[in-house]
Structures are given as C-alpha cells and as structure tokens.
C-alpha cells in the first residue's frame, strides 16, 4: 500500500501514459487511413468536382458588396451565380487555377481570398516581424537611455507634483495679497 502513496502529479502522468499506451495497442483508425487511394467508388468524380469547387469558393471573394466574405460563406444571389459559373467551367474541363485566374482577371485581384507569401506579398508577411523587432529596439533604447540618465533624474525627481502644487498655491497667495 505504501507504494501507491504517490505524488498527485505522478499519478496524473501515469494515468495519461496508460491511456496513450492502451490507445497505441488498440485497433487504431490511423491504420485505416494509411491507404486512401484504394477508395475507388462510383462517386469519385463527383467528390473530386465538389472538392475543386470548394477550393474555388473558399479562395475567392464574392463581388456583391458583402465585403470579405468568400463565395463559400456569402449567401447572396451573386455568390450563387458565381458558384454555378464555377461548376459549369469545371464540368467543361477547366482547371481550378484557370477558372480562378479568369475570375480575378475579370473582377480584380482584390477578390482573391488567399494571400500567398510570394512576390510583393512577401513584404506583407515579413513586416510584422520587422515591426516587433523595431518596437523592441525602441523599448530597448528607452531602457538604455533611462540607465544613462540615472543621476540627472534623481535630482529631477525631487520636484514632485505635491511640491510643485504647493509652490503654485504659495505663488497664488502672494499674488492675491498684492
């Protein structure tokens, strides 16, 4: 019985370990997933089409005015029309890239819902890191400056708000007396 008197953290860890081990030796669904290529069914073509359509709808914005809503999320009439158009083009045998390029060429690049980190967009992705580093630099600079001016600021500190307030009230009193 003495052995079972463990620290609570150790108990938790042991329990978690047991769960993991049990899971590893059970018939895992991971094994079932290892070869998806075997899933050849009659619905394959339709599934492929739906997947392509989904990719198109999620990577383009609707131009109806519901700004920043992808064609997948937008529930307006325009988005419905776009979906039908995409579906027809896919059935005609056009690729996702061809359809998307044509859409963006017609309506403008602002309707592209994906911003790949390439070309000029790379700058957009890099800049946040630069901003963080730059602000760090500013803070470091301020900190460094505060170190350098320690002696001066001690004397400055002597003029507190209360003291200044007192001086001002004394000055006012003096002015009123005169």
């Amino acid at each position, binding site marked *: 019985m003495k052995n079972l008197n463990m620290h609570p953290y150790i108990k938790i860890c042991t329990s978690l370990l047991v769960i993991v081990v049990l*899971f590893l030796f059970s018939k895992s669904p991971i094994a079932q997933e290892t070869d998806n290529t075997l899933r050849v069914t009659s619905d394959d073509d339709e599934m492929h089409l739906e997947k392509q359509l989904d990719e198109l709808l999620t990577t383009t914005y609707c131009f109806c005015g519901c700004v920043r809503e992808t064609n997948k999320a937008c529930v307006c009439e325009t988005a*419905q029309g776009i979906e039908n158009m995409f579906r027809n083009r896919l059935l005609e045998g056009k690729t996702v890239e061809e359809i998307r390029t044509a859409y963006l060429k017609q309506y403008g690049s602002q309707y592209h*819902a994906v911003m790949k980190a390439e070309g000029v967009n790379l700058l957009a992705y890099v800049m946040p890191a630069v901003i963080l580093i730059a602000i760090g630099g500013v803070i470091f600079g301020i900190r460094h400056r505060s170190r350098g001016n320690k002696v001066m600021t001690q004397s400055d500190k002597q003029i507190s708000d209360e003291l200044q307030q007192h001086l001002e009230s004394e000055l006012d009193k003096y002015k009123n007396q005169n």
Partner: protein
Amino acid sequence: MDVLVGGIQSIAAELGQAAIFLSIFSALWAIVSLLIGLRVRKPNIIKSGRNAVVATFILISIATGALIFSFVTDDFSMKYVVEVSSAAQPLFYKITALWGRMSGSLLFWLWLLTVGGAIVVWQNRKAADNLADYALIPIAVVQLFFVMVVTGWIEGVYNPLDRFPGGQAMVDGQGMNPLLQTPSMAFHPPTLYIGWISLTIPFAFAVAALLSGRIGTDWIHRSRRWMLFSWIVLTIGITLGGNWAYRELGWGGYWAWDPVENASFMPWLLGTAYLHSVMIQEKRNMLKLWNILLITLAFQFTLLGTFITRSGIITSVHAFAQSDIGWYFMGFIIISTGGVIALMAYRWQRLKSANRLESLLSKESAFVLNNWLFVGLTLIILWGTLWPIISEAIQGEKAAVPESFFNKVVIIPGLILLFLTGAGPIISWKKITPNNFQRMFISPLFIGVVGGVVAWLFLIFRAHAKAALEISAEAAEVAMPNLLTRVWDFITFSGQPMPIFSILCVFASVFVLVAIFSEFYRGAKLRAKRQTTSFLNGLGLLIQRNKRRYGGYIVHIGIVILYIGIMGSKGYFLLENGKLKLGESMNVGDYQFTMKDSFLEEHDNFIRSGVEFEVRRNGGKPRTMRPSRHYYYTAGQGEQDTIESAIQHQGMNDIYIALGPLPTKEILGGKMSMPEKIDSETDVSLSIYHNPLISVVWIGVAVMVIGGLVAIAEKSITTPRSQTV
C-alpha cells in the same frame, strides 16, 4: 395642428443650427481664456474658460435635441431625416437614426465629447490645482475641430440640421439602412463612440501634464477612471459589433479583420497597453515618456479609425459611411500629434525615468514585454489594414488581405500575451528570485503542461475519430503498419497539420488560470486567517481592499475564457452549403436539418420570409429553427433585404442557419421586389454552421467587463481644494 407642428419643427431646426454656430465661439473662448488665464494665473479668466466648456455642452445638447425632435416628429423638410428615417420606421430606430449616417453620427460624437468636457469641469470643481483646467484646453481643441466638421463648411459632409432649400419637404424619408435596424447595431456605434471619446480625457490629462510640467503620477490618477471606463465601454462596443456581424451578415462569424473592426480594436489594444504601463510609472517612477506616447497613440488611433471608416480608402462592411471627410481627420491627427511631440520635446528633461529595469525577469520587464506586444500587434494590424493601399502603390493593383493573413501574423504575439496574463501577476517586482519562481511558477507551469497534453490527446482522438468516419469499409482492411509507424502517426496526427496553436493555447490558458486562482486563494486564505472569518468572506474582503488589482485579475480570467472561445469557434467550426426543397434534409456534424415548412409574415416596415427547420442531434429530440430574410419597404442607402440567421445554442456551441436569396416578385413597376411564399418546388439555398464554444466568447467578454467594473470601483486619489488652502 400640422401647421403648429411644422412651426415648432422649423423653430427647433433653426435653434439647433444657431446653437452649432454659437458653439464655435464657445469652444474658441474656452481655449483662449484657459490659455491666457493659466498663463497669467487669473482665476476669473480660468473660470470663464471652464464656463465656456459647459456652454459648448449646452449648445450642442440643444442642436442634438433639435435633430432628435425632427426624427420623432418626421420632419421631412430636413435632408438628414429624409436620408435615414421614414414614417413607418419604429420610434426606437427613428432615435437611433441620429447616428445612422455620417452627419448625424458626427454631431452625436461631438455631443458626447461636450458631455465629457462638462463632466471634467464638474468632477474637478473642488480640485486643488489647475491640472484639469489645462486638460480642458485639448478637450476644447478637439471639440472645436468637431464643431467645424459638423457645421457643414467642410467639403464632404453637410450640417445634419440643414433643410431643403425653399421650404420644400418630402412626403416620406428613405428609411435607415436595414442592416442598422437591429438592437445590437442600435447600441454598437454609441458604445464605440463613448469608448473612443472617453479616451480623449486621459489624453487631455497627459497633454495637461506636459503643459503644466507636472509629469508625476497626478495626471494618471485623475484620468484612471476615465481610462478604465473607456476600456470597458470599448470592450462592450467591439463585442456588440461582433455580435451584430454574427447575427446579421449571415457568414457565421463575429470577427473577420475588417478594416473598421481593426480600427475599433487598435485603440483598445493601445489602451490596454497603457493600463498596464502606468502601473510601472506609479510603482517605480519609470516610463513617463512612454505612457504619454501610448495614450497619445491610443487617442490618435480613435481618429485614425474614423479616417479609415470615412475616407473610403479601404473597402469595408461599413461602406455606407464614406466621404472625403477622412482626410480632414488625417490632417487633424498630424497636427495634434505634432503638437504633443513638440510639448514632449519641451519637457524632455522631466520625462526621464527615475529608475531603471534591474532584471529582465521581473514584473517591470513583464509589463514592458506586454507593452511591446500590444503596440506591436497594433502596428501589425495597421500594416495589414493598410496593405491594400501599399500593394496598390507598389504593383498598381489592390491586394485583398484575407482573414487568414491576420490570423497567421497575430497568433504568436497573441499567445505570448496570453502567457503573460498569468506570468505578470505572479512575478515579483525588481527581480525574480529562485524562491519566487519555485513558489509561484512551478505548479501553474506543471498543470499547464498537463493541460496541454490532455488537449493534445483530446485533439488526436477527435481527429482520428473523424478520420475513421470518413474511411470506407474496404480501406479498413488495409495492412496494419508496424508499431513505430503507429506511434509516429499518432503523435503527428497521421500527416494532418498538428493543431500546435490550440495545444499551446490550452497550455497557456491553464497556466494563467492556475496562477490567478492561486493568487486569489493565497490572498483570501491569509485575509480569512487575519480577520478570523470564513474563506469566502476573506475572498470578499480581499477584492474589496484592492479592487484595482483583483478586478484586473478577473479581467485576466475573462481573457483566458475569450481565448478558449476564439480557439474553438475559429479553429473548429463546420460549414455546409446546400439547396433544399420543403421536406428534404441535410446533415452537418451530428445534426440533421429537415426543412419542414415556410412562412411569410407582415411587419410595420418589412415582410419576413423564411423557412422552418426541424433539427435533431443524433436522432434525438427535435428542435425548431426559423431562419428568414427581411424585405424592407424603404431601405435608405442599403440593400432592401437582410439575412436574419437562426441561431440555436447547444450548451456552449451554436448551430446557425442563414438563408440565401428567396423567391420574390417585382412590384411598383419593377422598382421593388417583395418575397413570395416558398412552395414545395422551390430550391432554398442555405448555409449551416456548427460553431463550437462560441458562447464562451460572449462569456469571456462578460467576465472581462465585470473585472473592469470591479477595478473602476476603486476610488482615485484626489486632494480637495479645502485641504491645501
């Protein structure tokens, strides 16, 4: 009777116009007399300046009252009333039409600003010094700018009290944009305005500190409650906006990094940074310059938000509010920032810190890191918001910045901030000692790691269970891989992207909760022991004695809840689009949706058309959901129909249905279209969402607001005039 009402309407409008023009002089009077009075130290002149601030408030109240009167009495001889109201519009929305479009919203903004000025005068009527009088100068300057904008002299906006020439009057108004005729939109703009305007007051006190040379903590104490008030109201305002988007826009989300959402969020971030950094100035007499810079930035970002909203430089869901006026805001931002920088240069010597950071592992450093990240996040969001313009300047084509960009770039600083939410309160001042680390950090860190591991396991089981469902029976017979492969697949999610940020979020959340609750527990236990009372009484006493500190901790708990909600709702939502006829069903996750019936209801100013769904979870008890669209008779400048999503809460999760376009018939010779009843042959397109943990988002915000209210309850330190004279 009509003649009498018409006469009163005419007088009210004229009176309102006169009040606006008179307020130019009162605002100018306030600035000049306060500047001269404070310079020559003449109490009478200073008092005159204060009175002028109150006079501006009275005048603008008259103008605002006149406009509201025009709305309530359907005065369609006024341009603004015709633009945003109609006779059939419910009274509530006639009043909220005041901020329905630009002219009125600017008048409303100005009125709130004058209320702020009047409160500052009243609050400081017994103050021992003239700091508040100095603060009234920048307040009056901002008021003057807004008065000038409201007069209609500036191109791009007209005076909201303007009437049609020649005494003309329209029969009816165009009505307010239907998207704005919802309760959350009725309260969202005013709360945001109140939040932004109350940021003006701490900014004004910062300028007052620079003008008067009292760069101590006095200005911070005097504006502390204003800052907290602003923070609370902004939190509520931003959330109401998110709630509106969730309910009204039909895309199942509450935050999409829209430029205007960003514009409201950036001052909030800077305000939050300021609330933390002032503590260092109060405790350690450090970061004086930084604090003034922060509050100036926070104030300027409120104006920048207006610039982004109104200038039309960036496309946004708030496109109904665009004009050239944004550029005048930009000018004011540049001039006022320049003024503050000049004052800072003038007071340079006094802005130096009296102390320094002694260690990188200290509370001060944690606060500095917190500030670094808050300001960094603000600028990153600004960068993303302005990227369409920048990209256009570089390549000649506007790029759209998707939600995913912002999610990617803010996630790491966001998670570090979450961690600091717990580390900040438990780390010691000056320098962390091994004892402090062991006592305060070990347990939260360990339990946080356990929480992260549990989350990791949960997500693995969830992912594999989902994968198992998607795999056909034939595939199940595929050869079993060896143990090593299985282990590897297990920990790497079988090649699927590992939700590392979710795991880190859970780790940090658990860490913060343990750290904060330990603080409460230790404090309450000690208090209960000292007062020989119960633990709960001890807890009550603990909070009562230091509302600011423990209110802040409650806010931190709210932040954790919010993060969890965001993680669930943004990371794990399901969306299915489809088309159904009456009687047909579709499945989303565990739910089955059957379209049972359709309906058409007539209301005062719109017709509601929709369908009735029967929803069952795993074949369980049925529930009814009624998504619809509203078709307005008069629609102002907006679309005629709005999406009225049906939302049902299932514990902390929501199921959400939004309808696509419904069948309509044209009336009035094709000028309008009104809905027809949906029959069994009609295909209804719809989007169905399953949004996990979305209620947690609203709960998190509520907890944050409660924490803020506790913190604001602590009285500020003020010295009455009687004690010093």
